[in-house]
């Protein structure tokens, strides 16, 4: 499902003394099947932007196209349910939305709301619990008895159970330990590769964006200031600095290596493995020379 934002603007509390412009003239095209990262500082408008991707907020200016559905400022839109089923959002700290008596029921909440039959919803819940690496016993437990990391997974399962074709993630790893962080990010990556999901990752972690995304957009003061391939964006350290962002660690390491080496590498490496390989090749070549 293609998502397109055209000259989108959004102001909170419009028409009151508390009016606050959160988004200004945002243009962004997210083709079906891409892994889009949206990066920005706190207060840059990321979270506001994200809520437009599921029609939770309606733009006060411009147009948001979610597949066939067109949402324009100042126009009423009816029946948002189908689009909400296709676009799943994992909010920041999603464990705060758990409510049901058992984990199983909580995971089934979403699918049941969208009219999936109960046995199918249960099948999905069981499959997801396994896929997310949770022990089967948790299904019958109260979600409030689980550990923080487990609650997070259950909440994510609750969104995945709707079988959306687009997955929007708002800082999905915030507050997790490094191991849990990596496991969850790997899980999303697997879904992206195996199921062909479109993923939109809202984050301030340059590392996650560099490692997983194939398209990157930078938000700054409510505007989408840069957008393109990760290699372009992360290679352009001057622009990044202008938006008070620094390049991912792996890029900074490569730059340092290049300074010591005296000439740049052929390409920008965005994962540690890739950079290690490139550095190894160079070192071997230099030694043999």
């Amino acid at each position: 499902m293609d998502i397109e934002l055209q000259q989108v603007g959004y102001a909170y509390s419009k028409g009151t003394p508390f009016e606050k412009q959160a988004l200004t003239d945002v243009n962004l095209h997210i083709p079906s099947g891409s892994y889009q990262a949206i990066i920005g500082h706190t207060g840059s408008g990321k979270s506001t932007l994200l809520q437009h991707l599921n029609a939770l907020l309606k733009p006060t200016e411009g147009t948001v196209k979610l597949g066939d559905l067109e949402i324009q400022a100042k126009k009423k839109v009816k029946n948002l349910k189908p689009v909400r089923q296709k676009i799943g959002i994992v909010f920041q700290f999603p464990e705060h939305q758990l409510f049901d008596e058992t984990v199983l029921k909580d995971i089934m909440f979403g699918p049941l709301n969208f009219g999936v039959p109960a046995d199918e919803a249960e099948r999905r819940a069981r499959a997801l619990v396994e896929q997310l690496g949770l022990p089967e016993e948790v299904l019958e437990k109260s979600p409030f008895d689980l550990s923080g990391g487990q609650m997070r997974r259950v909440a994510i399962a609750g969104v995945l159970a709707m079988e959306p074709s687009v997955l929007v993630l708002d800082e999905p790893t915030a507050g997790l330990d490094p191991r849990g962080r990596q496991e969850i990010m790997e899980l999303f990556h697997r879904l992206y590769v195996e199921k062909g999901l479109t993923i939109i990752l809202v984050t301030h972690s340059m590392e996650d964006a560099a490692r997983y995304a194939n398209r990157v957009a930078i938000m700054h003061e409510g505007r989408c200031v840069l957008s393109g391939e990760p290699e372009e964006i992360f290679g352009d350290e001057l622009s990044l600095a202008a938006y008070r962002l620094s390049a991912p660690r792996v890029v900074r390491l490569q730059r340092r290596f290049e300074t010591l080496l005296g000439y740049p590498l052929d390409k920008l490496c965005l994962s540690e493995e890739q950079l290690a390989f490139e550095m190894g090749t160079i070192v071997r070549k230099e030694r043999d020379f």
Partner: protein
Amino acid sequence: MMEKMIFGRYIPGDSFIHKLDPRSKLIFVFLFIAVVFLANNAVTYALLLAFTLLTVFFSRIRLYFLINGLKPIIFLLVFTFLLHLFFTKEGDLLWKWQFIEVYEEGLRQGIFISVRFMVLVFITSILTLTTSPISITDGMEVLLNPFKRFKLPVHELALMMSISLRFIPTLMDETDKIMKAQMARGSDISSGTMKERLKAVVPLLIPLFVSAFKRAEDLAVAMEVRGYRGGEGRTRYRQLKWDWRDYMVLVLLAVVAVVLWWLRS
């Protein structure tokens, strides 16, 4: 929806009204509520309305914003107006359609009650809009101090009030967030039958309660860690200051009251 609510919000500023001591504002509002009931004819209501608009003017809060804030209670306003309009059967008959009759006195009463209602809402809104919640509670604590003698836990009450005021916006944000998260999972509070809607409230309320209790616990721990042990011997960081403005406002109110008394029929 919630962002339109003006009740309990504070707009910082440095108008004449903003600069008043919270104590004088509280006394003013308290007395004003009584004074409002002095009005009972067109002249006195007009005076009351004029006085209220003057207050609004001095608070530098835009009138249309206040009127916007009336929206949530417009139903109540219209309802009381219609109630008086149709059920007061005195004076000349103005209009009749089948069994519906409107009398002159009914119209008068309807208008008076609506004006009274609006004036009260405006004045109390002005209080909360121009006084930060923290100074309101400070003012209240001082004003209630004499009641300590009767074993009224004044400090604790003030603390409870400031904590609840402090957490209103937080809980509102939280409600908004959880509501959106559940909406994204296909739950829908704004449509469907009454039963469906009631059912949709559960996924909203339970997480809210859970987080409210967690917050309360965190707050209690944080206060204890910083050595809070009740109001005994506690000094104040924010000192209240009573000056000529405060006297002036109360004198003005007294004048209005006297004039109303004199003009009422």
